[in-house]
């Protein structure tokens, strides 16, 4: 067993040990075991990263075992670590370790800590399987594994009804996406006869596939476009893109460390990773790329608008995540995969920082999440304030912090693509950037500045323990330096064979040569957003409520997130319930139970009674029955 395999196995071992023996181990040992597991996995990941990504070590490709061997269908369980995976390994194990440590303090009062840590490690394992796979099935295994862990963790406080509903919603919405994703994988197997990345990509590059296939009721459709769009449906579900995004804000019902790890830094970026991983396929379909770009851009814009009016501190960050994922997708859509991965990495650090910082605030305010009841916390929890400020500046693209590099790379690539969709994405991206700055500083101002809205809570606010602050500090370092360190990622061909860019799709290369105004426009947007936020929440704090009244319709539209939930309720949930009820009442209870199960049982009981009545106890009745029997036998068979 190679040490690389330990990266995947250690978190699994931690999860199994605490999951099975948690009660016997107790809280402290459970924490130690899982933290040791992911911590060691992180150290090995760093070593592998240094070798593969910083050094020039060859791609690691180790078979682990034959998973499925069934005739022509052969799938291996393997370890594939190229630079694409190496980046993901650092992000996943790094953030996961920080979140594990953070949870020691954050979950200190929870009675079910072993279960929590077991789930966290289970998630880490599944995510690592996802990123290290060398074939689509292993990717799918990890994909579903993280979905399961996400479900378990969102519903971790299962006594809270809203948490259970959110968990089910996350699971169901993801099912929709995963249905498309699974169809995409089926299509790949049908077309290429294998699920192995190398073979599939090789065959795709050399054109060894039928140009069109029949899909459902559509006649012949372009093979690669179909596959890519189906895969992208999966990515939309997992990465909360417009249309399948509704679960992400609700997922904030889970504990805050979970939001930071799963719903900001890692799982939701799995879609982006998958699109980058499958770039040799996506590159072959202009249609698919255009769809990815448009969906990404719309999501970036939509989520930013909704983020403007949210009052729950975690929901603001959740919509922000949704929006930033949109950025990553449209970067991938204009073939700037490296920029997408770059932003994925920097975003993981500063968004985890923001979430964990928000957790520290919530912790300080005794589980208060409504920003309207905060304010003035700057004086009480200065360290958290400083860390949150770093995260906010990194997110909003303040020069030389992480987001500045990666977001600019994305916007410049979109601009440099010089395509209609690219320009469309760039326009929406610039608008979203203003809003990003606005809602981020709105969050900071409402929470930390101004006068305390709830004097009593403010009085009792306190700085978090070190187990919470330490991970924040580490992540803050990442938020400050990740962009600067990660610049090489967007350099020419850094990802090597991991990412394929077709000839002519050179938006990223051109992005380095755009005019100065394009380069500085995002910073201008930052200043506008900051100024607006300052004007509305520091200078004139009475203005926002007044505006909400004047533009009540717009406000409600945004506050209800463009009414997506209500639309889905009417379109899908309502009819589904009606059909379910119909099948239950009429189909099941009346027909199957009524005539089938219960009907048969009732018939049996009726017959039993009748036979019981025949058993009169009179000997002559019995004798008569015997004679009738003889008569029947004698006449029929005699």
């Amino acid at each position, binding site marked *: 067993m190679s040490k690389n395999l330990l990266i995947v196995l250690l978190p699994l071992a931690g999860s199994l040990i605490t999951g099975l023996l948690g009660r016997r181990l107790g809280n402290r040992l459970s924490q130690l075991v899982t933290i040791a597991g992911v911590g060691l996995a992180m150290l090995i990941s760093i070593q592998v990263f240094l070798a593969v990504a910083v050094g020039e070590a060859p791609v690691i490709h180790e078979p682990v075992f034959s998973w499925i061997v069934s005739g022509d269908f052969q799938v291996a369980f393997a370890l594939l670590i190229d630079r694409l995976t190496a980046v993901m390994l650092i992000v996943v194990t790094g953030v996961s370790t920080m979140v594990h440590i953070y949870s020691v303090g954050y979950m200190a009062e929870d009675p079910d800590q072993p279960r929590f840590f077991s789930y966290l490690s289970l998630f880490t394992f599944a995510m690592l399987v996802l990123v290290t796979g060398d074939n689509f099935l292993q990717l799918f295994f990890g994909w579903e594994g993280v979905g399961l862990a996400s479900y378990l963790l969102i519903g971790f406080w299962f006594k809270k009804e809203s948490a259970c509903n959110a968990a089910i919603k996350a699971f169901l919405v993801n099912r929709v996406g995963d249905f498309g994703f699974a169809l995409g994988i089926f299509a790949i197997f049908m077309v290429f006869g294998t699920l192995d990345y190398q073979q599939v990509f090789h065959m795709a590059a050399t054109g060894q596939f039928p140009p069109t296939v029949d899909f459902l009721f559509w006649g012949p459709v372009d093979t690669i476009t179909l596959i890519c769009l189906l895969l992208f449906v999966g990515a939309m579900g997992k990465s909360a893109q417009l249309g399948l995004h509704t679960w992400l804000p609700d997922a904030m019902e889970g504990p805050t460390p979970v939001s930071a790890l799963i719903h900001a830094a890692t799982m939701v970026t799995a879609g982006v990773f998958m699109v980058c991983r499958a770039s040799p396929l996506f590159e072959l379909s202009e249609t698919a790329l255009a769809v990815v770009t448009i969906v990404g851009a719309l999501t970036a814009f939509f989520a930013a608008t909704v983020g403007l009016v949210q009052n729950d501190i975690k929901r603001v960050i959740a919509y922000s995540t949704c929006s930033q994922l949109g950025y990553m997708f449209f970067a991938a859509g204009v073939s700037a995969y490296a920029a997408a991965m770059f932003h994925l990495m920097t975003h993981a650090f500063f968004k985890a920082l923001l979430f964990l910082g928000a957790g520290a605030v919530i912790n300080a305010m005794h589980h208060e999440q409504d920003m309207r009841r905060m304010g003035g916390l700057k004086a009480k929890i200065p360290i958290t304030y400083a860390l949150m400020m770093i995260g906010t500046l990194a997110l909003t693209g303040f020069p030389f912090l992480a987001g500045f590099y990666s977001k600019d790379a994305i916007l410049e690539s979109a601009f440099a693509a010089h395509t209609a969709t690219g320009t469309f994405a760039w326009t929406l991206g610039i608008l979203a950037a203003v809003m990003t700055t606005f809602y981020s500083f709105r969050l900071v101002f409402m929470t930390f500045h101004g006068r305390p809205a709830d004097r009593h809570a403010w009085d009792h606010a306190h700085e978090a323990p070190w187990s919470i602050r330490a991970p924040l500090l580490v992540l803050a370092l990442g938020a400050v330096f990740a962009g600067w360190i990660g610049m090489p990622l967007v350099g020419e061909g850094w990802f090597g064979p991991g990412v394929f860019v077709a000839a002519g799709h050179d938006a990223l290369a051109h992005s380095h040569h755009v005019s100065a105004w394009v380069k500085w426009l995002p910073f201008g947007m930052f200043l506008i957003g900051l100024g607006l936020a300052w004007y509305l929440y520091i200078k004139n704090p009475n203005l926002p409520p007044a505006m909400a009244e004047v533009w009540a319709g717009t406000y409600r539209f945004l506050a209800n997130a463009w009414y997506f939930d209500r639309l889905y309720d009417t379109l899908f949930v309502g009819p589904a319930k009606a059909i379910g009820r119909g099948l239950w009442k009429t189909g099941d209870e009346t027909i199957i139970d009524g005539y089938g199960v219960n009907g048969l049982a009732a018939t*049996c009981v009726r017959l039993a009674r009748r036979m019981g009545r025949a058993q009169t106890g009179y000997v002559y009745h019995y004798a008569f029955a015997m004679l009738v029997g003889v008569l029947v036998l004698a006449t029929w068979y005699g």
Partner: protein
Amino acid sequence: MPVPMPDINLIALLPEILILLVAMGVLLLTAWSRETTQPLLGLVAMAGVALAGGILLIQTGMTTTTFGGLFVLDPFASAMKLLMLVATLLPLLMSWDYLARHRLDIGEYFVLTLFALLGGMLMASSGDFITLYLGLELMSLSIYVLAAFNRDDPKSNEAGLKYFVLGSMASGLLLYGISLIYGGAGGTGFAAVAQAMGEGGGHAPGIGLRLGVVLVLAGMAFKIAAAPFHMWAPDVYQGAPTSVTAFMAAMPKIAGFAAIYRVLLEPFGPMQSQWGPILQFLAVASLAVGALAAIAQTNIKRMLAYSSIGHVGYALIGLASGTELGFRSVLIYLAIYIFMNLGTFALILVVNNAGVGDEINDYRGLAKKRPLLAFLMAIFMFAMAGIPPLAGFIGKFYVFMAAVKAGMIGLAVTGVLFSAVGAYYYLRVVQRMYFEEAETAFRMEVGLLSRLVIAVSTLAVLYWGLLPGGLIDWAEASIRPLL
């Protein structure tokens, strides 16, 4: 004038002779012993049964006829007699406490049991309708009295009387059938009858013989309580002392099946196209009655009466198939049935020691008070319902397999469906034991002998459920010489 010496080989009758001697010895001792020492006669009886079993084991594999073909000893007879001995010994062992408590443990009880056994053994070894009839009457008369043995209980008297009246009528049918056959075949020996039956040269034999077959089978069906000749069973099972019920549900059934085997395979061998449908009819009727009527029962002995009717239905499926596999499957079924049934009755007798246990509701909450007893009872109920990996499943499986192989898919499907219906009332007992609150404290001793019987039955049910190989080989070896 030389008198021809009849060929008499007493060695072949050694087990029967032994049982006879023990029975008469016990009868004599009963007359002269004091009331307090009479229970000890049970030990003598049991020792005699055990010794006869030992002789049978030595005789296994012997094939001979004696008394001019009236008496047959072959592996099949030995196997059936062995089962009958087990079905006699185990009820005696487990009813030790019961008999003492009800003051039934007097010499006559054991004498009658032994005579019933002797009659059954003769049936299994009969080579002539006369032997068959004699054995049957000996067995039946003894059991009539046993059913009424609890003289102070009107229900017991009623049971005995009903059984006697209806049994006499069944004997009448049987005798009428035998006389018709004698009229058609000119003899009562099985070989002679078989020859006459086969003489048609493809044509059906005369109406007399055909009616004879029907009447003989009807008489036998009464003994094994196959529907529609079953109606005595629930009343008699319920009314008779529980120890007698346990005996009655086991030994006479084996004897009845042994006689049916003999008759079907030897004198009626050429008439398979006639008796096949008759047995199918009896099988389906018994399955229906066994499964459906049991649902409405509240008395556990009555329920088990219907249950045994159902089991007879399954066994008849195997016979109706008329193939080697079918005959073998019935033997397997009977062996398993004895242990399932006797295990259940042993547990009922144990619970009876607490003064309850006749009603199904008496078992409420048994699992909480006596978890082991409830668990064992659940095992027997699951076994009777035919749930793997218990032996009851193996029994049903082979019977159904025989039917399917013989092309009687419909019969097999009927059997499976009724077995699903039947599962309901077995599981109801489990439900009462495990999911309801106890009303009784279930304070009772579990005697050593009862423990022994329960342990043996449980082991048999578990062992044959998992490793039926030995049982199957035994059945095959026993049945082959007959075919």
